[in-house]
């Protein structure tokens, strides 16, 4: 392991994010507050409780998931797409670094930022509702694993994309709908049976359910299954990234 290389990538990526630190912090704080106003106050006054948890508190894990998924994808996809687009990637390709070091640097930085944002949202939310985390260690485990796997996914997206549209279209067309339909704002047990069954094909249901379990010990699917899904997704993304560097797919002519 070439730690100087990993450190160089990680530090540069972190400082790039720090340059936009105001947006990075203000944006999630603002959007979380808005969600609370709209969903928590407006809808929450009608739906008082889900599975014994107040509606405002119920949506917190989903909101955190929503943000860290989109942030992870956009940060790491941009991090690798931009050098590809601008041509500075030549340096990365000609450096004595293995794929593991490159990924550790880029994905590590993107995931770090997501975890920080997750913390900020949790902090903001605690001003609005009372939140108890039943299993902090598992909550943190989910937070980190999901940040890392979606950052890996974003990395793949950034390598694959050959234009700015593709970079933005996947998060909007695929990730957003799956997240909204994945139980961010409701428990899938509230759905008619057909839609419940269909929801089980949405991988994000498992992630949100597991994460919510760490908070309130209620879940749509078994916690073990959720954890398995997260690890499975992580493994698939790792495999794809390994393959990308092995074959040079869209990186080396």
């Amino acid at each position: 392991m070439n730690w100087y290389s990993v450190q160089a990538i990680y530090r540069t990526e972190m400082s790039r994010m720090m340059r936009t630190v105001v947006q990075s912090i203000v944006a999630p704080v603002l959007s979380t507050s808005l969600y609370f106003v709209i969903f928590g106050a407006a809808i929450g006054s009608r739906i008082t409780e889900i599975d014994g948890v107040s509606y405002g508190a119920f949506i917190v894990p989903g909101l955190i998931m929503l943000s860290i998924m989109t942030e992870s994808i956009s940060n790491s996809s941009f991090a690798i797409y931009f050098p590809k687009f601008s041509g500075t990637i030549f340096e990365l390709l000609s450096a004595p670094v293995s794929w593991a070091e490159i990924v550790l640097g880029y994905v590590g930085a993107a995931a770090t930022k997501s975890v920080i944002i997750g913390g900020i949202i949790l902090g903001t939310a605690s001003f609005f509702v009372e939140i108890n985390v039943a299993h902090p260690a598992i909550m943190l485990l989910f937070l980190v694993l999901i940040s890392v796997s979606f950052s890996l996914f974003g990395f793949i997206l950034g390598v694959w994309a050959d234009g700015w549209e593709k970079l933005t279209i996947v998060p909007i067309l695929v990730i957003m709908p799956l997240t909204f339909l994945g139980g961010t704002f409701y428990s899938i047990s509230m759905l008619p049976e057909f839609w419940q069954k269909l929801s089980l094909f949405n991988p994000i249901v498992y992630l949100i359910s597991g994460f919510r379990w760490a908070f309130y010990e209620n879940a749509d699917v078994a916690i073990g299954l959720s954890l398995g899904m997260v690890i499975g997704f992580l493994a698939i993304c790792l495999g794809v990234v390994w393959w990308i560097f092995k074959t040079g797919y869209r990186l080396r002519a």
Partner: protein
Amino acid sequence: MQPVISIRDLTKTYAGGFEALKAVSLDIDKGEIFGLLGPNGAGKTTMINIICGIVTKTSGTVTVNGHDNESGFRETRGCIGLVPQELPTETFETPYNVCRFSRGLFGKPPNPDHIEKVLRSLSLWDKKDTKIINLSGGMKRRVLIAKALSHEPDVLFLDEPTAGVDVELRQDLWRVVQSLRESGVTVILTTHYIEEAEQLADRVGVINHGEVIVVEEKNKLMRELGKKELVLHLADPIDAIPPGLDGYHLELGADGSELTYHYDTKSDHTGITALLSALHKTGIRFNDLQTSQSSLEEIFVGLVNKER
């Protein structure tokens, strides 16, 4: 001497099916400055990019300091610095930061003194904290060179470093290359400016249509350059060169009215006086004469055209 870079039967066929390199073999000696010449699209950048790991080879082998450039990529890439031909549009980073990044990326521990030395040698020190996006094109190129030098490479590739730069940068660069040579760094330089190769290179290689067509000591090429030819336009055409002129290796022009004599301006005797008196003895008269000299450029163009 063990070559620092050894290329054997290297081929590259791009995804579209275009064959950019056809069985190239080439050795670069340690500590030399190698000038790589060739017209646009010859395959110079392709070859460099394969050695550096940016492009994958189709077949053949490349070794750097005895390590294979794929299986031993850490060893080979670690000792190579590359200044690419294309100027990447850089970001909001500063020259100092990108140099520090490059050094770290290549696995070297931080060394601010070295980075300062490099930036000063390229007259970049007073711009070290300016955002690269606000620098001029020539300055951006200096930054690329500084990046490549910041990790102290043993081998430096300069892919057309002086294309579109002013005289000052060119001279800065030539100075940097000379001082690198003194410290034992091997430099491979591609250029379209022949005088740059003349000025800097120990050896020159010419590549065309993906094939190396000549590799030669520059001095030997320069000796070629010292050769001149004397063309005599004869008053009356002749059928054959008379026996009295045998020793001069003359060439008789197609229609028998031109005699060409090759001589070396750098030798002690050009033999012109003797030739003229010998001509007088044989009774051949001429009504005009001209001399001409081939430049490295002509040698180069001649080589490239012969290939077509």
